[in-house]
């Protein structure tokens, strides 16, 4: 495979941004400098969705929503303790099993480096072994005195994982924040590739507040404002590892995934699958009984209903500092998005 270095760089640059749920605008300027040039205009709505618009130039063209969430799981400070330690609670589904000995950044008056503490084997009590501590019991070590720390941090200050990226032996890449900014990079790349072949006006919504589920409402309200004719929702999808079941996961390296379930539009999905097939893009189907675990159910039920196709970038070790994706899948997702927003056939069927 020819590795698209530009896409790889964009994935890593975007994933390094601080965008803990509720703080999506923290690196707003950097976001704009990374992707702004590919769009005609952009704005941020009331709940923090960042909308980038690219017009096709045709009168009365359909409005195509491409949604991919921008926020990332993280933590916030709950107490400043003696000796310069912080306690935190989770924002979104943080896996406490990966926290100990992880590097974090505390986004206070200035970014502060911190380490999540652990107990060395030398000091462990026998009854503690094997138990995972709850997140509130963990301490973040900042190396500051309490008085200094209180000037920089307060209760509620957000905390994110420190950016770190590795290229694995087989070429896959590992790091934090790929959920979901790797998808942001792929859809931007797809829209960029589409050039002036767009079948409608494209509204790229980098939605806010996905990771906190029902307490979110980013995509729901964002889609209401945009009022699209149809939508594509791109999110990372649970990748297969030795400790997971085949029918609950997708293969990392197996191509972009398309979700079949009651929430996704049957016809739109079918047309997208056919499009992908005809263009030789590597794909796989992911079947679920209920929802999608993405923004699709919310967008689908916006206004009088919006037909959605739900596509996924397979990712291993979700919600950790070592999420793993395959650049061939990223490239496939970019190609899919490109073909989707260029498809006159889909536009014809789904334009209101």
């Amino acid at each position, binding site marked *: 495979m020819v590795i698209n270095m530009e896409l790889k760089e964009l994935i890593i640059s975007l994933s390094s941004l601080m965008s803990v749920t509720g703080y999506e605008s923290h690196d707003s300027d950097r976001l704009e400098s990374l992707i702004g040039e590919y769009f005609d205009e952009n704005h941020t709505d009331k709940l923090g969705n960042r909308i980038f618009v690219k017009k096709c130039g045709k009168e009365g063209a359909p409005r195509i929503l491409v949604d991919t969430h921008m926020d990332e799981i993280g933590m916030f400070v709950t107490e400043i303790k003696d000796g310069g330690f912080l306690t935190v609670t989770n924002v979104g589904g943080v896996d406490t099993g990966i926290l*100990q000995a992880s590097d974090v950044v505390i986004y206070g008056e200035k970014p502060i*480096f911190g380490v999540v503490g652990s107990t*060395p084997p030398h000091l462990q009590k026998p009854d503690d072994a094997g138990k995972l501590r709850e997140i509130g019991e963990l301490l973040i070590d900042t190396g500051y005195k309490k008085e200094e720390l209180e000037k920089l941090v307060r209760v509620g200050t957000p905390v994110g994982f420190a950016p770190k990226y590795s290229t*694995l032996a087989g*070429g896959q890449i*590992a790091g934090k924040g790929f959920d979901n900014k790797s998808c942001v990079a792929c859809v931007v790349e797809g829209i960029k590739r589409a050039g002036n072949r767009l079948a409608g006006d494209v509204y790229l919504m980098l939605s806010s507040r996905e990771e906190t589920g029902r307490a979110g409402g980013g995509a729901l309200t964002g889609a209401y404002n945009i009022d699209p004719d149809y939508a594509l929702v791109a999110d990372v999808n649970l990748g297969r590892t030795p400790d997971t079941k085949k029918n609950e996961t997708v293969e990392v390296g197996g191509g972009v995934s398309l979700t079949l379930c009651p929430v996704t539009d049957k016809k739109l999905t079918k047309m997208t699958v056919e499009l992908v097939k005809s263009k030789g893009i590597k794909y796989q189907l992911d079947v679920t009984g209920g929802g999608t675990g993405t923004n699709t159910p919310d967008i689908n039920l916006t206004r009088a209903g919006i037909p959605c196709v739900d596509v996924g970038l397979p990712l291993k*070790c979700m919600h950790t*500092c070592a999420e793993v994706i395959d650049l061939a899948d990223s490239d496939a997702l970019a190609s899919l998005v490109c073909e989707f927003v260029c498809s006159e056939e889909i536009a014809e069927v789904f334009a209101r």
Partner: protein
Amino acid sequence: MTGKEKIELLRELCLVCGPTGSEEKVADVIREKLGILGYEYTTDRLGNVIVHISREDAPRFMVSAHMDEVGFIVNEITEDGYLRFAALGGIDPRVLSGKHVILEGNDGTPVQGIIGSKAIHHQTPEERKTAKKIKDMYIDIGVKKREEAESFVSLGTSGTFDSEFVLFGDGFIKSKAIDDRLGCAIMLDVLGRIKDKELPLDLYFCFTVREEIGLSGARTAAQALSPEYSVVLESTAVADLPDVPENSRVSELGKGGAISLRDRSTIYDRGFVRFALSIAEKDNIPVQIKRYVSGGNDAGHIHKSNAGVRALAISAPSRYIHSPACVINEADYFSMGDLLYAIITEFDAEEIKNA
């Protein structure tokens, strides 16, 4: 060396991979530094690197720090290209999931991987409360088949954490392998300071192998060199955390090197401990007494070697040792070097024996 140079030396040493049993790359860096300092060295049959600063009719005195660090060794390559592994040294499984690692590839080039972890979405409520066992974990090197994995690594390939060296807070350092590259760095610092000085000792500086599993390198080095005195430079656990009462704090960061009275492997020489404390007081060097009997180090074998050796251990108080993120205070690093220098240059056997 300036403080900045000392930090850079520590950075360079910590970032080298040297899991127990595969210390060659660390030894290479140390030999290079010794060469620059103008010292001759030998490497013994186990891999210990030894500098001898000889002086006839002076007490035989051994200073040591170990080159190895905790890590892992591949013990199975699965059909779908994942690596199962065992720990090298004592590692709490709870610091492993979701960490980046580096393995020494078949052709000597580093192979990057991560320790995989089932997504929280797939974990049962019970799994969310239970630490995974190391035998159930796997390293993901981003390949899909065993054959592909085997082109990079083999059974027996070992590796360590891939963790950044970070200066943070108020003079703190976070890195992997501080245990015990810090000791190695202090030895190199002091070797620089005593170069061409007339010393009251027949001195051996030993950079040892395989401390984390069985204190092996130090054992054979001590047996071969038969010192009368031994100083071990180490890292020690601290427990200087909020809510821990003072008497349960093993040691505290920023208060100087910790001198052990006893640990799980050694009873230290009372006279030598008193001598070290009095020198520290005289020269105004901060030190503290390690409060709690825990851990052990190379002194465990050294003090029992041959006909017995008077042992002293000076340890850097280090939070979270044996994890990818060990934390020390730079002031302790610097003052430990001062203390070792003072002990060597002001050595007085009579004072130790009469203390």
